[in-house]
C-alpha cells in the first residue's frame, strides 16, 4: 500500500466518523447537519486515489472516478450552506445557484468534457481533466473564497466565543483550499509532492474541534506550539539528512565504508535531545509570545499563596474579587459565599455589579447542584450551545440561571466535595474569550479560594466562639461580683441588725412606756416622745429591709402556690389611689387564666410594689402624668411579668449598677438604694430572674420571670378567651 492510498482511506474514514460524530452532538442544528454531509462528501472525494489504485488503468477506474466526482460536485455547495448556518445568515439566491451549478457538474461528471479519463504515474493515479474540469476548479475556488470572505466579515462583527470559533474555521478553510489546490494541480502537472488527503484530515479535525468544543484553546497558543513543534523536529530530523547531502564525500573520505555511522550518531543524538530542545524552545518562545496570558496566570498563582493568609472572611472575598478583576480584567465579578445558617449562597463581594444582581442563590438551585457534581467551571457560551442542541435538557435551566447571575463564567470553589464559594465573572474587557487554559487555571484557583475561605470561616468561628465565651465569662463574673456584693451586704446586714436592734428595742420600750403615762406630761414633751417613737419605728423598718436583704432562703412555712395576677391586682389596688392622685395611669394586661407560682406572697408583693413605685418616680422626674403598663403572660415554663413606664429611663452608664445595694439616683433621704437589689434577692430566691431594659428619656421595662408552679405545668390549659384589665 502506498502512502497516497493510506491518506485516502484515512481521510475517508475521518470524514465519515467525524461527520456522524458532529451530527450526533446536535441533530437539530443545521450547522452540524451541513458539516456532517460536507465532511462525508469530502471523504468520498478523497477515496479517488484508492479506487484508481484498486482498479488500475482501465474502464472501472474511470467509472469510479466519475461517480466520485458526482458526489464531489456538491462539496463546495454543502460547505457554503455550512458557512451560512454558522454565521447565522442566509442568501437563498446564492445557495440555490450554487446547488444548480453543483447538480450540473454532477451530471457532467459522466461526460468526457468534464473527465476525460484516468492516468497512472507510479505510484500515483489521477484523473485526466476535460475542458470543463477547469470550470469546476473556478467554481470550487470562487465558492471557497466567498466562504472565507464571509467568515472574515463574521470574525470582525462577532465577539467572544463566536469570534474564536470563526478564526478556527478560517484557518481550517485556508488549509482546505490548500488541499483542493494540490488536488487540482496534480491533475495538470501529474505530480503530487504531498498526499493532499492528509490536509483534508487536518481540515476536518479543525472544523470538528471548532464546532464541538466550546472551550477552544487559544488559537495563538495552538499555532505557536504547532510551529515550534514542526520547526524543532524538522531541524532534529532534517539536520542528519542535510549532513549526508552536503558532506557525504567528506564522510566517505573520513570513515570509508562506515561513513553512515556519522549521520546515525548525529540522528541518535538529536533524536534523544529533540524532546528536550522542543520543551526548552517552546517554554521560551511561549513565554515571550504569550506574555499577557502568563502575566495574569502568574498573578493568580502568586495571589493564591497570599489568600490563605487572610483571616477575615470579608477581607478575603474582597481580595479575591479584586484579584480577578485586576489579573483577568473582566467587565464585572462577584463572589457568593455559603451561609450555612440560611442554606443559601450569599453575595459577599463584587465589582461593577448591576443592580439586579441576585443577592443570594438557594442551595437547591440546579446550578449549585451541577457545580457540586461536576466540580468544573461553567462557561455561558458552552451552556447556551448545549441548551440549543438539547432543548429539553438541564442546560436550558442552567443557561437561565447563568443569565440571571450575569455570568460569563462561573467558577465553583470546592474543597473535599464541599462547595464553599461561587465566583461569577463577566466578559473579558479585551473582548477575548475564556479559553480552555483559562478555565483550567480558574478550576485550580477555585480550590485555593475554597481552602482560604474554609480557613477564614474556621478562624471566624473560633473568634466568634472566643467572643461568646468571653462575654459569658464577663457575664458570669458580673454575677459573681454581684453575688459577692449581696453576700457581703447580707452578712453585714445580719450583724448590723443585731447590734442596732438592741438599742432600738431599749429606745422603743422606754419611749412607749413614757407615752403610756403621757397624761402626766406637757404637750411638747408628749410630741417629742411621739417623734422619737416614730423615728425609732422608721429605723426598725430600715433594719427589717436590711434583714430581708440578708439572703435567707425561703422557709417552707412561707411557701405556697400563689397566683401572680392576684398579687399584682392587690398591689395595684393598694397603690392605685396614690398613683391616681399623681396623675399616673396604670394599665394591666393579662389573658384570663391561672398564673400560679410557688413562693412567698409577702415578698413578691414587696417586689412589685417596689418596681411600680420606681416607675412612678421615673415618670415624675420628667412629667406631670404618665402611664405604667403591667402585663402578665406565660412563656413555656415561665410566668413573665413586664412593668413598663414612660419615664426618664436609665442612663446607659449606670445600668450595670442598678442592682447594686445602696445604689440610688434618688435624692438623699428619698431612698436607701436597696429597692432593686432587694427585688433581685427575692426574685432569685424564687429561682426567677429580673432584667431591666431602658433608653434614656423613653422609659424603662422591668421583666420579672418566675417559674410556673411545678405541679401545675401542663395541667391547666391556658384559656385565651378574653382580656382582663
Amino acid at each position, binding site marked *: 500500500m502506498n502512502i497516497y492510498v493510506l491518506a485516502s482511506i484515512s481521510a475517508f474514514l475521518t470524514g465519515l466518523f467525524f461527520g456522524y460524530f458532529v451530527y450526533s452532538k446536535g441533530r437539530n442544528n443545521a450547522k452540524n447537519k451541513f458539516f456532517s454531509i460536507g465532511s462525508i462528501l469530502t471523504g468520498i472525494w478523497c477515496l479517488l486515489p484508492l479506487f484508481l489504485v484498486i482498479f488500475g488503468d482501465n474502464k472501472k477506474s474511470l467509472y469510479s472516478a466519475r461517480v466520485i466526482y458526482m458526489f464531489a460536485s456538491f462539496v463546495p455547495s454543502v460547505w457554503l450552506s455550512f458557512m451560512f448556518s454558522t454565521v447565522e445568515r442566509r442568501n437563498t439566491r446564492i445557495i440555490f445557484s450554487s446547488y444548480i451549478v453543483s447538480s450540473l457538474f454532477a451530471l457532467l461528471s459522466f461526460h468526457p468534457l468534464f473527465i476525460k479519463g484516468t492516468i497512472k504515474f507510479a505510484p500515483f493515479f489521477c484523473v485526466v481533466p476535460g475542458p470543463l474540469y477547469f470550470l469546476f476548479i473556478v467554481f470550487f475556488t470562487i465558492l471557497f473564497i466567498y466562504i472565507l470572505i464571509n467568515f472574515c466579515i463574521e470574525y470582525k462583527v462577532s465577539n467572544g466565543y463566536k469570534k474564536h470559533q470563526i478564526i478556527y474555521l478560517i484557518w481550517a478553510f485556508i488549509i482546505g483550499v490548500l488541499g483542493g489546490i494540490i488536488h487540482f494541480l496534480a491533475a495538470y502537472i501529474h505530480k503530487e509532492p504531498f498526499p493532499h488527503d492528509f490536509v483534508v484530515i487536518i481540515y476536518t479535525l479543525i472544523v470538528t474541534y471548532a464546532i464541538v468544543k466550546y472551550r477552544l484553546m487559544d488559537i495563538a497558543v495552538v499555532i505557536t506550539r504547532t510551529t515550534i513543534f514542526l520547526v524543532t523536529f524538522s531541524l532534529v530530523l532534517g539536520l542528519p539528512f542535510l549532513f549526508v547531502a552536503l558532506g557525504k564525500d567528506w564522510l566517505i573520505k573520513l570513515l570509508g565504508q562506515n561513513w553512515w555511522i556519522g549521520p546515525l550518531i548525529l540522528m541518535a543524538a538529536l533524536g534523544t535531545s529533540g524532546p528536550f530542545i522542543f520543551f526548552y524552545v517552546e517554554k521560551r518562545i511561549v513565554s515571550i509570545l504569550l506574555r499577557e496570558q502568563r502575566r495574569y496566570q502568574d498573578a493568580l498563582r502568586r495571589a493564591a499563596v497570599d489568600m490563605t493568609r487572610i483571616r477575615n472572611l470579608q477581607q478575603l472575598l474582597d481580595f479575591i474579587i479584586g484579584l480577578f478583576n485586576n489579573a483577568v480584567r473582566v467587565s464585572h465579578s462577584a463572589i457568593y459565599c455559603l451561609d450555612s445558617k440560611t442554606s443559601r449562597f450569599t453575595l459577599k463581594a463584587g465589582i461593577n455589579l448591576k443592580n439586579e444582581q441576585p443577592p443570594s442563590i438557594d442551595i437547591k438551585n440546579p446550578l449549585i447542584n451541577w457545580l457540586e457534581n461536576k466540580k468544573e467551571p461553567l462557561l455561558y457560551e458552552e451552556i447556551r450551545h448545549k441548551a440549543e442542541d438539547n432543548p429539553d435538557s438541564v442546560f436550558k435551566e442552567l443557561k437561565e440561571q447563568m443569565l440571571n447571575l450575569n455570568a460569563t463564567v462561573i467558577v465553583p470553589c470546592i474543597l473535599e466535595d464541599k462547595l464553599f464559594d461561587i465566583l461569577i465573572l463577566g466578559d473579558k474587557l479585551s473582548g477575548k474569550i475564556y479559553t480552555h487554559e483559562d478555565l483550567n487555571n480558574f478550576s485550580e484557583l477555585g480550590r485555593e479560594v475554597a481552602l482560604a475561605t474554609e480557613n477564614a470561616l474556621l478562624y471566624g468561628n473560633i473568634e466568634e466562639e472566643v467572643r461568646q465565651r468571653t462575654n459569658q465569662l464577663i457575664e458570669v463574673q458580673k454575677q459573681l461580683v454581684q453575688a459577692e456584693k449581696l453576700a457581703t451586704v447580707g452578712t453585714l446586714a*445580719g450583724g448590723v*441588725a*443585731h*447590734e*442596732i*436592734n*438592741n*438599742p*432600738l*428595742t*431599749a*429606745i*422603743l*420600750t*422606754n419611749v*412607749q*412606756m413614757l407615752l*403610756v403615762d403621757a397624761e402626766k406630761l406637757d404637750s411638747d414633751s408628749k410630741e417629742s416622745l411621739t417623734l422619737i417613737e416614730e423615728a*425609732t419605728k422608721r429605723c*426598725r423598718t430600715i433594719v427589717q429591709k436590711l*434583714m430581708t436583704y*440578708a439572703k*435567707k*432562703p425561703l*422557709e417552707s412555712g412561707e411557701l405556697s402556690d400563689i397566683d401572680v395576677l392576684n398579687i399584682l391586682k392587690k398591689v395595684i389596688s393598694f397603690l392605685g389611689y396614690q398613683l391616681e392622685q399623681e396623675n399616673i395611669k396604670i394599665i394591666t394586661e393579662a389573658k384570663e387564666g391561672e398564673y400560679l407560682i410557688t413562693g412567698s406572697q409577702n415578698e413578691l408583693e414587696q417586689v412589685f410594689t417596689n418596681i411600680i413605685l420606681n416607675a412612678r418616680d421615673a415618670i415624675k422626674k420628667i412629667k406631670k402624668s404618665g402611664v405604667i403598663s403591667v402585663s402578665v403572660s406565660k412563656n413555656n415554663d415561665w410566668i413573665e411579668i413586664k412593668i413598663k413606664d414612660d419615664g426618664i429611663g436609665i442612663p446607659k452608664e449606670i445600668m450595670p449598677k442598678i442592682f447594686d445595694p445602696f445604689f440610688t439616683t434618688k435624692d438623699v433621704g428619698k431612698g436607701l438604694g436597696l429597692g432593686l437589689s432587694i427585688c433581685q434577692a427575692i426574685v432569685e430566691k424564687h429561682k426567677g430572674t429580673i432584667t431591666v431594659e431602658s433608653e434614656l428619656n423613653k422609659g424603662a421595662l422591668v421583666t420579672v420571670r418566675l417559674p410556673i408552679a411545678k405541679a401545675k405545668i401542663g395541667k391547666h390549659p391556658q384559656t385565651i378567651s378574653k382580656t382582663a384589665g
Partner: protein
Amino acid sequence: MPKKILIIDDEELIIKSLTKLLEKNKFEVFVAKNGQDALIITEEEDIDLVIADIRMPGMNGVEAIEEMQKNLAKRNSNNIPVIFITGYADEEIKQKAKALKPVAYIYKPFDIDELVDKVKAVLNE
C-alpha cells in the same frame, strides 16, 4: 403574789428596759446575764415565765432553755413557758428555738403592747 418572770439577756439596755416595763406591769423580775445564771435561778425560784434572748456569748438562749427544760424534767417540775426575743438569728438556730415550743417568738424592736399582751395572756392575767 406577783408572777415571777426571768429575763435572760446579755444586753444591759434590754435588761433595764424590760425590767422597768415588767415591773411597771406588776411582775416580779429576775435577771440572768447568761445561761448558767439562768439555770441557777430557775432551780432556786419558781419562775412563771422566761423571756430569753437567743444570741448571747457562751451558752446561747436556746441552749440555756434546753438545759433548763431538761433540769425541770429531772425534777418532775412543771415546764416553764418561754418567750424568745431576738434581733436576728440564722435559720438553723431559729429552727432549734422553735423546736422548744416557745409560747411566742418576738422580733426586736417590738412594741411594748405586743410583749405585755403576750405575757399577760400566758400568765392568765
